[in-house]
């Protein structure tokens, strides 16, 4: 696990140097660059994205299935997040915000867990969902509290995409979450259409 983590951090450091070199204003990029997330494509229209995302709700079955798991099942997660480009935009893809992710499946890591993440990177997706105009990608680090086990700090996460497809979002909006590597070296994934809640994409206007 340590080797994987060190490799991840090393990749992050390389990414940090590349990102800093591409910045218009790289006065203090090192403090907010997240390891473990590779740099995305340059948007070409400026150093940071021009939209933000908020969302919250519940996800159950893997995409493309829809609906809730049966009432006897713990196979679901709930979440809430806000993510946006960093207002000061100290480097390309700098982000800010927070995410809460609560996994209930006992066979998942730690018998289920609560994850509290801080967003440090924000961009458009590069996993194929960028063809949808109202998707975003973000990531950072956070604290993971497993139901069975010790709290883990500085765990990396990435939302490969969070997409606002329609209003309301149930059965249409979707999110793809990765957390890890975790203490045992595993990586958690959940990729689902929403079974409750909503995701909204908002164009940034002024300070909004």
């Amino acid at each position, binding site marked *: 696990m340590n080797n994987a983590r060190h490799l991840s951090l090393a990749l992050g450091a390389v990414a940090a140097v590349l990102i800093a070199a591409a910045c218009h204003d790289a006065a203090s990029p090192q403090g907010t660059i997240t390891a473990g997330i590779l740099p995305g494509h340059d948007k070409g229209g400026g150093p940071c994205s021009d939209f933000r995302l908020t969302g919250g709700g*519940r996800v159950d079955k893997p995409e493309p299935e829809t609906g809730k798991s049966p*009432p006897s099942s713990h196979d679901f997660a709930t979440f*809430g997040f806000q993510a946006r480009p960093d207002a000061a935009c100290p480097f390309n893809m700098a982000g800010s915000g*927070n995410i809460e992710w609560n996994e209930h499946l006992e066979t998942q890591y730690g018998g289920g867990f609560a994850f509290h993440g801080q967003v440090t990177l924000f961009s458009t997706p590069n996993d194929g969902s960028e063809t949808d105009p109202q998707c975003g990608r973000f990531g950072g680090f956070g604290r993971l509290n497993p139901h069975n086990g010790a709290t883990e700090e500085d765990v990396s996460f990435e939302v490969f995409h969070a997409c606002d497809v329609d*209003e309301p979002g149930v059965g249409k909006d979707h999110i793809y979450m990765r957390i890890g590597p975790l203490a045992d070296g595993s990586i958690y994934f959940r990729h689902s259409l929403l079974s409750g809640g909503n995701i*909204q994409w908002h164009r940034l206007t002024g300070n909004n």
Partner: protein
Amino acid sequence: MTTKILLALTLLAGAVQAQTVTGKAFGTYVNAAGVTSQSPVATLPSSGGMATGQADAFGVAGAVDASWLNAVTTGAVDNKKSGAQSTSELEQVSAAGGAITADVVTAVATAYFGQFTGGSDGEGSGFTNLVVNGEAITTEVAPNTRVGLPGVGYAILNEQLQTGNGVTSYGITVNMIHVVLQNVLGLRTGEIIIGSASSSVAR
């Protein structure tokens, strides 16, 4: 010229029409025997953002015991669309002296405005392995299901309360377990709310 200016001002007023969102979520609220107790509350600022309220465990003797309480509310506002979504969930829940138990209680409340539509719903709310008066409930619980609790009072399960006027405002409050405590005369003496989430939008 004057007409054009008035038209422009009218359009501008429409574009910046004030919109607000509200969101609130909490795990448990108990008002019994003159004592009020509540787990951490997440309250959304009216301009949007995110708030959380969490506790590893919460208990009031004879009223409620629960673990892993997580309440989250998020929302955003702009002149094209706005929305608020709140969730509350708890695990290992026991209420009203064990009359109601569940592995997981999840409340989800969503309110939104798109460019041409709006609404609110409690989609995603539910129980995992709910037991009421010793009987396992193996199907989804319909909104506003009332059950008697002998010696305690009654409970409304998956309580959903719509708010707003359905035109310029929408909202909903979801209380997954709402126990109304009654004395032997049937008079209300208190209440217990478990798994509560509220969201609303207005413009």
